[in-house]
């Protein structure tokens, strides 16, 4: 994975944090200087040719699988919804390292394909260019289906071997006693839906002559699939496949044109939410149960309304061509009646109340990053540290005492967490990177309702970001959000997150040069769409290191 002697930025940050962790275990007593992660942002290097990066095989994620079959077969049963979709702080669900097959997954693909195909043949007139043909035309009709459905499923025109195989299965099944045309068509669809050409995304590219290092350029069809899976979360439409096969997806200008075309589609909003819900850890909401006595306002309906409100805001911000700063500072809302009691607004309000702006002040994000009974400045600070500043914070080592001291009297969460961040405490070196950021959000309780008191004592929402170029003290969520919106470090981190998602892998040292180049290409006041274009037109997106 990592070549010996090469320590990429991610690794280096992790190593630094591991040193901090040694402090956590108390092996380094009274650590002299506070150790903080490296600042991510350094002056962009002078433009030079970046080294080519790898392009490992990815698999359709469960969500992509469901969206693709909805697209191709108009089947919205979402058969893969229960299939595990792993993700971690540095890896989205489409990460190449997640590709792993086992018997349960294979059986899923098998039975799902049988179900999808069985339903599809009942609607073949609607789905395919020909249906229920006379016997003499059957194979011609299958050929047409392979040219349309098959082409989109494989994201390219099928080669002769594939056609032979698929026509072969059609003939075999058609010849079975009692089998109909539909039975045999169903078998063809099942094969397509279980083939590696459908389930996996590979990018071999073609070698680039005269490159300083062995480099391959992705074929236009590979670019089309990569674009579409990134921006839409599904396979390319016919127009994109046509453009690729007709030589209209060759230059960076072509790629930008198609990127912007895809961004203008409603599908792009869905594709973005696929990214953003992982980036902002909204999945946590599905696992969170709030204690009913402590938070009687919290119900399943509120939980889904909160998520819908945040997703609508994020989706609208993206689709509306706004920039990263707007995600953290804009006050538009679609909060309906369900959230009005939590926000203290009238149902139908289109602006958040005072004291709220951007993602970090919304009920969904605040509730997702809190405990069932209380807030968690640690979880909130950690999410900002890892997701918005792209720094790693490793978990406590095994055996460490993570218990806060027993309660002896009324105290705010902030007071109880003081033990975390007192110099000399074994928790200090790690928790000072998280808790003081989260303190700034203590004006909201565990479900995101504004509060002035915590456990009967006044809330103190002064906070601090320690280390990096965003460092400094602040008071309250608006100041925190504004600081992050203006932070070059946070803006660069957003670019990095998009890059990880678009590439389906975590960056290494080789990617830094590409990220710098993408950052330089962004206009002042770049929109989220501009960031997408900067990534899709980068050499890292369009080229790969050549296979040996």
């Amino acid at each position, binding site marked *: 994975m990592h070549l010996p002697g090469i320590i990429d930025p991610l*690794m280096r940050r992790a190593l630094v944090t591991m040193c901090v962790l040694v402090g956590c275990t108390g092996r380094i007593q009274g650590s002299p200087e506070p150790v903080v992660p490296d600042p991510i942002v350094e002056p962009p290097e002078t433009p030079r040719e970046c080294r080519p990066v790898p392009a490992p*095989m990815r698999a359709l994620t469960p969500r992509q699988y469901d969206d693709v079959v909805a697209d191709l077969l108009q089947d919205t049963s979402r058969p893969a919804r229960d299939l595990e979709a792993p993700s971690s702080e540095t890896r989205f669900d489409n990460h190449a390292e997640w590709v*792993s097959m*086992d018997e*349960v997954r294979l059986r899923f693909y098998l039975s799902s394909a049988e179900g999808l195909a069985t339903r599809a043949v009942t609607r073949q007139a609607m789905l395919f260019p020909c249906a229920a043909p006379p016997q003499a035309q059957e194979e011609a009709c299958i050929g047409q289906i392979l040219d349309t459905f098959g082409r989109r499923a494989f994201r390219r025109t099928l080669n002769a071997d594939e056609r032979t195989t698929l026509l072969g299965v059609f003939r075999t099944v058609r010849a079975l006693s009692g089998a109909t045309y539909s039975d045999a068509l169903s078998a063809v669809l099942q094969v397509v839906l279980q083939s590696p050409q459908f389930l996996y995304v*590979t990018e071999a590219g073609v070698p680039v002559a005269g490159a300083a290092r062995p480099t391959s350029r992705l074929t236009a069809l590979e670019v089309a699939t990569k674009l579409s899976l990134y921006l839409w979360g599904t396979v390319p439409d016919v127009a994109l496949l046509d453009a690729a096969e007709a030589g209209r997806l060759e230059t960076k200008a072509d790629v930008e044109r198609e990127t912007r075309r895809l961004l203008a589609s409603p599908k792009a909003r869905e594709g973005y939410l696929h990214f953003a819900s992982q980036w902002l850890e909204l999945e946590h909401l599905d696992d969170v149960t709030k204690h009913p006595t402590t938070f009687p306002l919290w119900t399943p309906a509120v939980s889904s309304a909160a998520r819908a409100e945040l997703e609508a805001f994020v989706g609208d911000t993206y689709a509306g061509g706004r920039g990263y700063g707007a995600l953290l500072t804009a006050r538009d809302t679609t909060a309906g009646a369900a959230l009005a009691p939590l926000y203290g607004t009238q149902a139908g309000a289109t602006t958040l109340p005072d004291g709220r702006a951007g993602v970090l002040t919304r009920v969904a994000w605040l509730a997702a990053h809190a405990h069932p009974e209380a807030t968690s400045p640690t979880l909130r600070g950690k999410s900002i540290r890892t997701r918005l500043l792209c720094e790693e914070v490793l978990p406590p080592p095994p055996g460490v005492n993570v218990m806060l001291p027993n309660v002896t009297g009324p105290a705010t969460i902030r007071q109880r967490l003081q033990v975390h961040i007192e110099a000399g405490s074994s928790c200090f070196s790690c928790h000072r990177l998280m808790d003081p950021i989260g303190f700034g959000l203590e004006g909201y309780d565990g479900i995101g309702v504004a509060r002035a008191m915590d456990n009967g004592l006044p809330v103190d929402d002064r906070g601090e970001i320690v280390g990096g170029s965003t460092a400094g003290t602040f008071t309250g969520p608006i100041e925190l959000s504004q600081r992050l919106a203006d932070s070059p470090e946070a803006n660069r981190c957003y670019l990095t997150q998009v890059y990880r998602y678009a590439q389906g892998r975590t960056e290494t040292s080789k990617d830094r040069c590409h990220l710098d180049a993408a950052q330089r290409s962004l206009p002042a006041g770049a929109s989220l769409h501009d960031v997408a274009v900067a990534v899709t037109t980068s050499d890292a997106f369009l080229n790969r290191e050549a296979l040996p």
Partner: protein
Amino acid sequence: MSVKIPRRHFLRGAGAVLPIPLLTSLLPKGARAQAMAPRRVMFWLQDNGTLRDEFTPTGDGNSLNLPYILQPLEGVKGDLTVVRGIDNHVIWNHQGNAHDIGNGTLLTGIARTDFAAVGGGANGGGPSIDQYLAGRLPTAPRRSININLPSGTFAVSYQGAQQATTGMSLNGAFQDLFGNFMGTTDPAVIARRRLTRESVIDAVLDNFRHVNGRVSAADKAKLDHHLTLLRDLETRLALEAQGSSCALDPNPPTYQPNRPNTEYTAYLYALAFACQLSHVGVYMVNAPNVDPVFPVRFTGGDYHQWIHQGPDYGLDPVRRREDWRTSMRWFATAFNTWVQRFKAVPDVSGGSLLDNTLIVWANVFGMGSYHDFFEVPVVLAGRAGGSVRSGRLLDYRRARAGNPTVFGPSYNRQAFVNETTNNLWVSVSRAMGLSDVTSFGDASLSSGGLPGLVG
């Protein structure tokens, strides 16, 4: 001539209240000739540790006195083997969250792939004991039956390094295993569907040869793995189509949302083993990060935090300890349901399913509140075809300098003095009849198994 009944075509409402083996005359010839029952192994996993000082039984190589937490098992005491003094040595000096490293090493016995290098995810460092045994025991329609497995960094079951196995959902497992997929009893339709399935899989195998362009060696290995699994699946589906061997209870326990589902899971696994759908199972009773659905008395809305707080925390420590004891005892109640079920199901050899099964109740941690890895509770039920003599306490503790339960700094090599999980898995393998197994996972932690457990 023997009658062949498609695997999925179970006898429903045959008057049986329990799954019973079909008359041997109805079994395929091969199965009839071999009247011996296979050995099965079940990993019944508890997460988040226990209340160690009230879990520990007394007794010796010939007797067993159950402590408070295990008392619900009094009625099946003679079927149990309590194994005391197992440490998870693998985790010493192992970086990461206790849940990640505990779950990722318990069944693999080997260090996880480095966290910093791969950034989380299912990082188990090698195959877990369930998958290893699934590969060594006779081929069955299902490689293993793994249900309710935690995933990602919490994954416990691995085909190989970083290759977690996918669990079936608690809800869907029954339908998946026993549902009448063919949707019909018409033999002609069933035959056609089976042949179609075979043609489809053959064509998919064919398409692996047509993948456009080259891929890296690492990606080629992934495609080859997929291909191998697909061929393996073809074999298993053919086995599945060969014939059924058991009947379904007309009113089987069904899945209930937000309930522990103890009866349902015990029935499901006993049926699957009795039908020889598989010889290996893993069931995670409680996930580390999910509030339990079992009738546990815990205060606050966060079970995991409550575990961390320990049995003597809060303003009413007496009540707190009582809640702890009650919660931990619930697991023994559930385990008892399982043991009783396996005891009641007859096996093809004439004895009970429990005679030929080893159910391994293991815990990711030792003491829950410390999330530690010392004296991990292990209770075995069953006799694995006679290879395990039950009704005993086997104590593998060794003298340890200092208190093993103190935090952090005690995680040095010297703190781990007891027997290893590796030797436990060696012994479990040998109990399954694999007498050639002398090492599992980290070879340096294996020394031929736990003395006296098997044989």
